[in-house]
């Protein structure tokens, strides 16, 4: 508590989730402080009051318990922890359901840097630029080991796994740069696996999308020449083809067009038109919803989720496509509305 007065101990609340998480945090904090005081003040009081100098050894009372008090303590506590649980669950559910209109950005993590891939073809290293007051959804994967995407000021964290996607979303509501940490231990430079989220006013964000220029005070600090991005957490950015375009090119270059139409006509393989976001029936009768993980799996391990009515002839593309390329293909398939 003294420490509270000595330094600024509140984190900035820079996302829609921050005040929400802090409210529950504070509730548990006060409950804990009160419970702690009851136990410790009670204990210290007893230590003084029933000190052996005052109460001789053979004058202690004979009490073996009191089931009613025990039961009421247990019951009261049960109620409180159920409240905490339910509250935590409701808030957590909100964190898990990204709105439809969220701006989607692909995140690729690897030892020891973060890459952010935008739909318009921008690829940023250790720097994520997002608009203020607009939901942003991150579709994340790792090229090697586990990592975890953590922004304390947003109160969000999500492990990033190899060979599949995990999601996290937020609405940033204050402009400024915010620290991104890798929170899952990943080897030598784990503590250097840093990035910045830059939250811009919507206008500035549009400006940045067109010109690549960041507003004053948010400019990318230029890394010293000798330090590579991998060890310094330094930022970099490149502009490429829009993601869906790139996906389209890959789609024909890699020969997908031989079996898949994008127009709705079935060929050797199912058409990919209107696939995303809709349920598909598999050979075992199971119905699954098509999301990024489903498409990814269809490409890298086609036999693991066989579509009903088709032959197992699709070759695996495992190891032949980079994470960026898989993201591009998915982005293209998603665009086939």
């Amino acid at each position, binding site marked *: 508590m003294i420490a509270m007065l000595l330094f600024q101990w509140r984190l900035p609340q820079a996302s829609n989730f921050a005040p929400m998480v802090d409210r529950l945090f504070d509730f548990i904090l006060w409950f804990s402080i009160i419970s702690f005081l009851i136990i410790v003040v009670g204990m210290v009081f007893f230590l003084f009051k029933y000190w052996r100098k005052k109460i001789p050894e053979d004058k202690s009372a004979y009490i073996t318990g009191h089931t009613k008090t025990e039961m009421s303590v247990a019951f009261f*506590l049960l109620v409180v922890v159920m409240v905490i649980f339910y509250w935590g669950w409701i808030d*957590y559910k909100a964190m898990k359901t990204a709105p439809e209109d969220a701006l989607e950005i692909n995140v690729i993590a690897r030892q020891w840097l973060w890459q952010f891939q935008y739909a318009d073809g921008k690829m940023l290293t250790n720097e994520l630029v997002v608009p203020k007051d607009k939901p942003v959804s991150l579709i994340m994967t790792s090229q090697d080991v586990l990592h975890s995407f953590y922004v304390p000021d947003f109160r969000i964290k999500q492990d990033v796994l190899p060979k599949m996607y995990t999601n996290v979303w937020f609405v940033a509501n204050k402009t400024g740069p915010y620290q991104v940490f890798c929170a899952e231990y990943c080897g030598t430079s784990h503590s250097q696996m840093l990035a910045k989220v830059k939250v811009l006013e919507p206008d500035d964000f549009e400006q940045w999308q067109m010109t690549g220029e960041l507003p004053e005070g948010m400019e990318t600090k230029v890394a010293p020449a000798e330090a590579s991005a991998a060890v310094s957490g330094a930022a970099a950015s490149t502009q490429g083809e829009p993601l869906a375009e790139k996906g389209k090119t890959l789609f024909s270059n890699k020969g997908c067009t031989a079996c898949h139409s994008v127009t709705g006509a079935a060929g050797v393989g199912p058409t990919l038109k209107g696939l995303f976001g809709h349920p598909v029936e598999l050979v075992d009768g199971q119905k699954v919803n098509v999301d990024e993980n489903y498409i990814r799996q269809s490409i890298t391990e086609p036999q693991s989720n066989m579509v009903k009515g088709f032959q197992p002839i699709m070759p695996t593309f495992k190891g032949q496509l980079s994470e960026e390329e898989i993201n591009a293909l998915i982005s293209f398939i998603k665009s086939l509305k």
Partner: protein
Amino acid sequence: MSGHTEVGNYLTHPKGFWSWVTTIDHKRIGIMYMATTMTFFFIGGIFALLVRLELLTPGLTVMSADTYNKFFTYHGAIMVFMFIIPIIPAALGNFFLPIMIGAKDVAFPRLNLASYYIFISGAALAVWALMAHGADTGWTFYTPYSIRTNTSVVLVALGVFVMGFSSILTGLNFITTVHKLRCPGMTFYRMPLFVWAVYATAIIQVLATPVIGITTLLLVMERVLKIGIFDPALGGDAVLFQHFFWFYSHPAVYIMILPGMGIISEVIPVFARKHIFGYKAIAYSSLAIAGISFIVWGHHMFVSGQSPLANLLFSVLTMFVAIPTAIKVFNWTATLYKGSISLKTPMLYAVSFLFMFTIGGLTGLFLAALSVDVHLHDTYFVVAHFHYVMMGGTVMGLLAGLHYWWPKMFGKMYNEWGGKISWALIFIGFNMTFFTQFFLGYLGMPRRYYDYPPQYAGLNMISTIGSWFLFAGFLLMLIYFIRSFFSKEKAADNPWGGKTLEWQIPSPPTEHNFHETPTVTGKPYDYGVVKL
């Protein structure tokens, strides 16, 4: 009851190195475990100090990132597998469980000795692997990192596997001993609560340890034979390992804490001269905790990508742990009421257990709440939380027990003032080291960080300075314990006025504990005057 016939005590009778290494006396085996595990505590502690030293300032302070990563792995692996899991059951449990139920030994004395040697072999293998090639995965060995890192994870894991067998055998031995060897009159409800706690622990040891055995074997197979189990690059599932790992390691947390709770249940009544408050509630809450411990492992994985539904279940189940735990804390505090309290060193540790374990338990609520855990997971908040439970709980319980039973085990008394000063240093040092870490965690500092941004510098410095107080406290303790061996003065058979059986026999006990089999007629904590 105390033995007046001058038969030699267990320490000197029979004599000789060989008689120790081949002993099947549960007391000697307990002492050997104690010497071994305390040595590991010392080594693990040195690594902790080095880790804290590196964190004294941001950036490089004394060592490279790779060295740092190895050191925190050594600290964690040694402390968990070679110190805190075995120490109380295998050392103090071995020594006192049979005596407390009026038995001459455990049910299978030879198996008991075998468990010790199995433990030693596993520990030797793990230590050798650590020294020869290093390991840098943290004590959790998360895949796929642990499969790819260029260190000797396989051998360390095999060491853990072997030590697991020792744990299972000790557990079996204790369960059988409690069921078969209680002396006449020693009904279940007359058993000291320490026995209940070690019994509950033994159940977890027997049921949960095989799982880590299987897990480590799978890990080894994957690394050696390249079968895809946990590594997605080989077609495995990265999160599966976490399920296996925590399926054991969560119950293991209760293997670590329950025996410590048992000691607190012994020390508080004796030093407060009060019957324990709510004997049955404490006994059964140990069993309840043991039961729940099997179904909450997923709370370590709320942000791992585990399904929200699984998270919901694990969150609600975890909340239930709070209830038996709180009952215990409440009952220990209530035991002090209307007592006659003496604050000798064992009791000082017992009350600081209450103080720190309460903090440890309450901060668990933050981590069990899903949305708050998203923020706090894998930060220093977690580090602080489990050190409050493991060190503020188990180690305080251990130290209470060590000081409480020291005169019984060795027949000598340590210097009480030494005990008090060392307690104060440890109490202050511990809270300085770890309370600051709650703030660091809330403010977002991730764990296992070699380097950190400047805003965390102040708190890290306080934390590191705290670790030096801790070290000073333990050093002083080592000195007065060693000195007590050489003191001429003999400790009394029952210096604290305990009512359990171990205090009714000479200090140190004779080889067969009891001259003749005792008969128990009353409850273990019959203190106090009944007001009519």
